[in-house]
């Protein structure tokens, strides 16, 4: 009984994340299948309660780069989402909404379980690659006059596929899964995905942040082992500051794994001056 409760407590954020991810997906599916008007469309652009437009700011940016004038709905929608993540939620899209997150988390879990996860078996890729891909996608959108990443995005293929029919779209998802399982740990989400890169760049000012308490920290390094973006946890055991990097996806894995209450969510209203980056 006690153990049960402990398990739930230890995974409270994981459970909450999965519930959010799955219910949002189900609402979209119901929007198409039964005409529910809670969430219509998909993650590229949607309408909430049949009035509030929402749109993926990165996809919208690609449309702009492709050279077109857009209707106001999508621009307002993109601004709403942009404002939400950059000022409030941080890169929470990646851990609370994105359907690929479930795929890559599963790959990661398998990796650890099967002992595949050995450093020497990793292909080393720079975490900056995603910013190159991001920049490239905007240049290419301009060159070919079409939103370049939207043509190959495994995120939209999976999400759209679950709502409207998958076709061969699952191949892209399997590719991401295998890449994360065999090639590089957190390979797709932590190194390549330009949408994640986009959110990393713009979510620095956000209010909801993980806060570290160096006085409580016992230097077990559980948090660094579990974090999919471990470079953001440079302050562990050193300084009591907020995790300020935009690359942190607010997944709360570090919080769950910390037995000494040295990590918690907090609200950061103004960026601390003395914080330094160590990306």
């Amino acid at each position, binding site marked *: 009984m006690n153990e049960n409760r402990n398990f739930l407590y230890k995974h409270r954020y994981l459970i909450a994340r999965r519930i959010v991810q799955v219910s949002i997906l189900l609402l979209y599916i119901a*929007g*198409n*299948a*039964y*005409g529910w008007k809670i969430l*219509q*469309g*998909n993650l*590229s*652009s*949607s*309408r909430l309660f049949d009035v509030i*437009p929402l*749109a*993926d700011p990165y*996809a*919208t940016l690609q*449309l702009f780069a*492709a*050279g*077109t*004038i*857009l*209707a106001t*709905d*999508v621009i307002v*929608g993109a601004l709403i989402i942009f404002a939400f993540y950059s000022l409030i939620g941080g890169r929470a899209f990646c851990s609370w909404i994105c359907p690929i997150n479930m795929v890559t988390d599963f790959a990661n879990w398998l990796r650890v379980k099967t002992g595949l996860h050995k450093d020497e078996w990793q292909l080393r890729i720079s975490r900056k690659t995603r910013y*190159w*891909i991001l*920049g*490239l996608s905007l*240049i*290419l959108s301009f*060159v*070919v*006059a*079409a*939103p*370049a990443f*939207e*043509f*190959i995005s495994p995120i*939209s*293929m999976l999400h*759209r*596929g679950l*709502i*409207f*029919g*998958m*076709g*061969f*779209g699952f*191949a*892209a998802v399997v590719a991401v899964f295998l890449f994360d399982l065999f090639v590089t740990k957190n390979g797709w989400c932590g190194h390549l995905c330009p949408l994640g890169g986009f959110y990393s760049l713009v979510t620095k000012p956000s209010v909801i942040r993980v806060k570290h308490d160096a006085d409580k920290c016992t230097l077990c390094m559980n948090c660094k082992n579990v974090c999919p973006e471990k470079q953001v946890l440079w302050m562990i055991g050193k300084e009591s500051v907020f995790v300020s990097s935009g690359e942190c996806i607010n997944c709360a894995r570090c919080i769950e794994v910390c037995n000494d209450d040295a990590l918690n969510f907090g609200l950061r209203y103004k960026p601390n001056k003395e914080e330094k980056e160590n990306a």
Partner: protein
Amino acid sequence: MAEDKKVDREKRKFFIRTLQGLGLAALGGSIWSGYVAEAKHDEVVLRPPGAVPEEEFVKKCIKCGMCVEACKNRENNPDETKQTATLRLAAPGDHRPREKGKYIYPKEVPVGTPYFVPREIPCYMCEDIPCVPPCPTGALDPDLVSSVKDGKKVLDINKARMGVAVVDMEHCIAYWGLQCDACYRACPLIDEAIKLELRRNPRTGRHAFLLPVVYPDVCTGCGLCELACVTEKPAIFVLPRHLALGRVGKHYIKGWEKQDEERIKGSQGIQKTITPRSEESPEDYLNTEDLLDE
């Protein structure tokens, strides 16, 4: 000294790294753009009502599927289970017709964009056009399917130009002299978009042909006629307008239409080509010696 060397090495490493990155970006970029340039184009795809021209459409559509959902969930969807509808979102590799080779089928619809295949499910030309207003990006533009009524702008599906129906006179059985007016009766713009034309049948001498003729200036491209056609592969079918229709040069003016006539106003007249021959009058030039000698 040693410090200097270290800085130098660091600089060099950074320089090389950047070059490596650029090289990889160039390689990846060319493959990527090559793929997108291929994948963004389909010759025969038919878009929902109110779609802006294809080039522009690909730039604008964010692939959200709200048009598809509206089409599927409209009240008068003939499929009461609402499993299928006119519009669908292209998924990778879903380009397989129900029956192969029996109708025109787009093979490379850009992934995630809406399209329809009339021989499977045509557009029913809903009067309230539920599919157009939800579009957030302007890829479907309500202005393209609106007309002004009593000083107010109202949606008008008859303005839609999704494509244009084309009749294959060789295989349309009405042109054989058999009686068939399936397409004519199916057309929501009967006697406007398709008219039946009467012609004597010289083979029998006493019967008439009743020939379906499409008026492209009225036809919306809904494809109800294509679905209704009784031949194995439809003898009337919808093509994108840019494929099926010609284009007349600007210098042709319909002198009998006031609006068209306006276009000549302020024109300098036609610049004649001047060559040594054309300087003379045709009579003189045609009667020259050397021409007679030839």
